[in-house]
């Protein structure tokens, strides 16, 4: 068909659509035209001879029946299915309004089920799934070797250059690293720490975006280290700091004291390639050596300095496995050429999403668990609606049979029943969005405590709406299709004759019993999970991070960002430590590279003396920090064996380290670790002697598995950005102002960031997050149980109502009411008990899965929570007993005379 043909078809359909909506020609109009035709036909027949009446009949016969022709015309006039749909929707609404109890229970059940899914999706989307704000985000691939601690793919700049130049699979490969820098709009102004990206010159081109203002980086800006001090501003930052001034292009700003010329502004909506970070500036990677806080790092030359991320898109017709094969070859060549730095460094290619999941496996597993729980809630909700529909089926059977007997096709009737289900589901979906919205409000309690533009954006966005809609439609099919199919299968004559369509009653009751049993089982599992997690988290929160959180204040400082030399930085920290100690109210002032509970700790690679690693492994990477001699006092961590650091552990003294108990146990089990040695990085570095063992605390997150940790003395390492940690005598927050004054007194240009108390950090990083997760899981457990109760109640009430006559007879012939009560109650409780048993059996498997998500058990101590099971069992038993008792009791109150008159 040609373009013209397509246009013609389009015109026909649009007119038919108009015919449906506007009724461009009325039925009367159509009929008039047909009658005119018939009249002429009859006249003609008469002319040929024949009676008037005969002529008319003959005409009608010859011309085709009036009714059939009208029907054909109506079909042609509009869109038949659309008219049917409109009729079904109107009819469906009437049914829903006529049965308010059914409607309310169904819609509310589904709202809970759909809302739970909407909420979990929004949660997962913000934490993991939402694609980067770039064109064709799914095609963006990450290349690199796995970082053993974080699991993410990393690379060094040197490796990047080799991969980029050799690889033929990619349509350009970009590299970037995220970095903080002291930003000042003018030379004299006090700098603020800001966060941005150092990027390869092809960055914007490979991503496929154009700056909103100015230009992208040029190829020559990726060639000479330190030469091209040009910057592109992030859109948000440009609006916030420069009031969206379009004349910023060409202006000079200062990053770490270096003059940069602004050459462009990134487009709105683009926030960089790091998942949660809203990048404030972009500068060429070539500026890295001049911007870095650690001048010894040689970021552009050191092949082992793996701090860049490589991303790119495949050329067309290149598959991921082809790219992977090529990268494996490149990795082998690099390994041969640079055995020191690249041994066992395999190169891997992943999609952006795969990479995120690998980076955050615990989060991914948690989200998977939440998704399963939400699906379970939805299933319980759907079972409720399906149960209600099934119990309504006998009442509707006659209506359906009637419709089918006057010629409605079975598919037509099914379509109408499914339309009704869709109506219920869509209303449930709309209400479910309300539930989802409430959840998103709850998620907003999770904030990342930082001065940097790092945001986890929980939103009820278009993606969440689409998912909710899809869930609603899926649920309608789930609960609506089976009852629709079975209720149209009924034998017409039986149904028409029977008083309430007893036809398939037995099978129907069985199906419902299985549904209700399943509901109870799922509710039990949900409750077990909720209780496990709740009690586990409560215990964790009770135990705390392993050090006191009160009376502690922190602030972070990065003298490297002011281009301090090593000696200057050392002097700065020296003086800071001395002066801070003198501030009234300060008990201890300490320096540390890493603050516990503030994200992932940095890592070191160690080779413990005399430890046999498995084949192919020569060293181990562990979390670490660099601390001064006051740190253990200030944070309140006891030294279990040996000593802490001393001021005499200086650059000239023998190398020493303090390790935590987990590390000591791992490498020297049953031995005294004091005096044991390890090397850092590789076999050519000097021995480091362990002088002390510190108590194990929590480092990254409250529910982490106990992990190995290495402390190195600040005086033996190059100073970098450090935290000042204060133990206060009184209210720690009152010390923020005097300490800021101390820093300013040393250097007014020193940017101070992340001033907060340990209590605040702990609350935001641990308590709030765990609180939200517990609330979510707890809500799903409660909802699951509530829905299951409605299901059970409904079933028992229904079964009792169908036995009204029987109960009447029993009572009339002398059965006691308590017997009747027991009889009906028994029916419900058999189901409840079966469901409970099944649920508890399933829970055992679930408990094992939970242990994988929360290593060491949700309680963190590895023990299983024995009390949970009896608690849940007792609750479910009590609640189901009530749910079954109420309708059973009502049934036993039946007045026999009324019951026998019934019907």
């Amino acid at each position, binding site marked *: 068909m040609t373009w013209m043909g397509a246009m013609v078809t389009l015109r*026909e359909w649009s007119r038919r659509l108009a015919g449906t909506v506007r009724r461009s020609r009325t039925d009367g109009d159509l009929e008039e*035209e*047909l009658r*005119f035709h018939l009249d002429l036909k009859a006249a003609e027949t008469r002319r040929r001879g024949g009676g008037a009446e005969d002529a008319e009949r003959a005409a009608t016969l010859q*011309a*085709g029946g009036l009714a059939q*022709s009208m*029907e*054909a015309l109506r079909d042609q006039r509009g869109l038949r299915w659309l008219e049917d749909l409109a009729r079904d929707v109107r009819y469906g609404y009437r049914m829903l309004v006529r049965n308010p109890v059914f409607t309310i229970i169904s819609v509310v059940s589904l709202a809970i089920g759909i809302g739970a899914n909407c909420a979990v999706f929004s949660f997962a989307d913000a934490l993991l799934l939402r694609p980067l704000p770039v064109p064709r985000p799914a095609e963006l691939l990450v290349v690199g070797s796995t970082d053993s601690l974080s699991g993410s793919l990393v690379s060094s700049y040197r490796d990047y250059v080799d991969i980029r130049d050799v690889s033929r699979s990619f349509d350009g490969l970009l590299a970037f690293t995220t970095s903080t820098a002291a930003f000042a709009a003018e030379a004299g102004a006090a700098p603020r720490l800001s966060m941005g990206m150092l990027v390869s010159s092809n960055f914007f081109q490979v991503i496929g975006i154009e700056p909103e203002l100015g230009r992208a980086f040029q190829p020559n800006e990726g060639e000479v280290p330190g030469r091209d001090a040009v910057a592109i501003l992030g859109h948000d930052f440009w609006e916030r700091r420069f009031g969206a001034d379009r004349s910023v292009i060409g202006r000079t700003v200062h990053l770490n004291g270096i003059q940069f010329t602004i050459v462009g502004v990134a487009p709105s909506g683009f926030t960089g390639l790091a998942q949660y970070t809203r990048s404030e500036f972009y500068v060429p990677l070539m500026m890295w050596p001049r911007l870095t806080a650690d001048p010894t790092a040689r970021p552009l030359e050191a092949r082992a300095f793996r701090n860049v991320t490589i991303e790119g898109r495949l050329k067309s017709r290149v598959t991921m496995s082809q790219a992977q094969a090529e990268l494996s070859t490149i990795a082998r060549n690099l390994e041969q050429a640079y055995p020191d730095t690249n041994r066992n460094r395999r190169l891997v290619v992943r999609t952006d999403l795969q990479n995120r999941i690998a980076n955050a496996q615990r989060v991914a597993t948690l989200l998977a668990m939440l998704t399963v729980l939400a699906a379970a809630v939805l299933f319980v909700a759907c079972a409720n609606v399906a149960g209600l529909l099934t119990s309504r089926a006998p009442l509707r059977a006659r209506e359906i049979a009637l419709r089918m007997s006057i010629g409605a096709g079975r598919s037509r009737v099914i379509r109408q029943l499914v339309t009704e289900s869709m109506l219920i589901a869509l209303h449930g979906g709309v209400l479910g969005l309300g539930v989802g919205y409430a959840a998103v409000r709850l998620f907003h309690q999770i904030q990342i405590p930082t001065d940097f533009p790092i945001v986890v954006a929980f939103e009820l966005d278009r993606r969440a709406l689409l998912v909710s809609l899809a869930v609603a439609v899926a649920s309608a099919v789930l609960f609506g299709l089976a009852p629709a199919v079975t209720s149209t299968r009924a034998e017409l004559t039986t149904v028409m004759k029977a008083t309430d369509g007893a036809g398939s009653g037995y099978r129907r009751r069985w199906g419902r019993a299985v549904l209700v049993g399943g509901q109870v089982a799922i509710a039990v599992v949900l409750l077990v999970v909720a209780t496990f997690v709740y009690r586990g988290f409560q215990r964790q929160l009770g135990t705390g991070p392993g050090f006191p959180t009160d009376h502690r204040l922190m602030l972070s400082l990065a003298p490297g960002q002011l281009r301090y030399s090593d000696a200057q930085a050392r002097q700065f920290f020296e003086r800071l430590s001395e002066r801070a100690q003198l501030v009234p109210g300060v008990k201890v002032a300490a320096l540390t590279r890493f603050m516990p509970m503030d994200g992932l700790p940095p890592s070191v690679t160690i080779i413990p003396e005399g430890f046999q690693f498995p084949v192919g492994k020569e060293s181990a990477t562990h979390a670490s920090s660099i601390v001064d001699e006051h740190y253990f006092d200030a944070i309140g961590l006891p030294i279990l064996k040996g000593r802490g650091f001393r001021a005499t552990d200086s650059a000239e003294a023998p190398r020493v380290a303090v390790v935590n108990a987990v590390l000591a146990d791992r490498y020297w089990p049953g031995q005294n670790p004091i005096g044991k040695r390890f090397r850092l990085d590789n076999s050519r570095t000097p021995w480091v002697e362990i002088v002390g063992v510190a108590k194990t605390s929590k480092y990254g997150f409250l529910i982490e598995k106990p992990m190995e940790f290495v402390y190195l003395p600040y005086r033996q390492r190059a100073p970098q950005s450090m935290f000042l940690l204060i133990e206060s005598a009184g209210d720690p927050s009152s010390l923020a102002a005097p300490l800021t004054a101390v820093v300013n007194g040393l250097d007014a240009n020193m940017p101070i960031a992340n001033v907060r108390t340990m209590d605040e950090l702990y609350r935001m990083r641990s308590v709030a997050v765990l609180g939200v997760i517990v609330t979510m899981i707890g809500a799903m457990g409660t909802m699951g149980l509530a829905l299951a109760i409605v299901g059970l109640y409904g079933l028992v009430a229904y079964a009792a109502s169908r036995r009204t006559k029987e109960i009447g007879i029993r009572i009339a012939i002398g059965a006691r009411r308590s017997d009747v009560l027991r009889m009906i109650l028994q029916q419900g409780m058999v189901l409840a008990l079966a469901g409970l048993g099944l649920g508890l059996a399933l829970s055992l498997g679930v408990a094992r899965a939970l242990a994988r998500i929360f290593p060491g058990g949700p309680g963190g101590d590895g023990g299983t929570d024995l009390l949970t099971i009896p608690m849940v069992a007792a609750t479910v038993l009590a609640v189901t007993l009530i749910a079954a008792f109420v309708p059973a009791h009502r049934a036993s109150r039946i007045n026999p005379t009324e019951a026998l008159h019934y019907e």
Partner: protein
Amino acid sequence: MSTKEPQKTDILQGTLDLMVLQTLATLGPLHGYAIAARLEQVSDRSLRLNMGTLYPGLMRLEQRGFVRAKWGVTDNNRKARFYEITAAGRRQLASERAGWDRTASIMHALLNEQR
């Protein structure tokens, strides 16, 4: 239901469209009965159109923009709906006709060769 025997009606409808358009092109505006009568006459009474075929067909042509219709008065002073071919209809007629001629000549050649 509306969508039974699609094959048969399709073939018939394609031909019917061509016949109706040709009739309207030669005779000018006509009402439905006159179109049917004309086709019956031309075909020597072998083609008798059912109302249920003719009028939906006309409506479809109207919806596609090939004919336009309005209520008018016959010579006998009766109210009737008159159909008139549009410019798009004439173009459609020309192209359909060319297609038909081509098909006919191919069939002709083929059948003569077979003999």
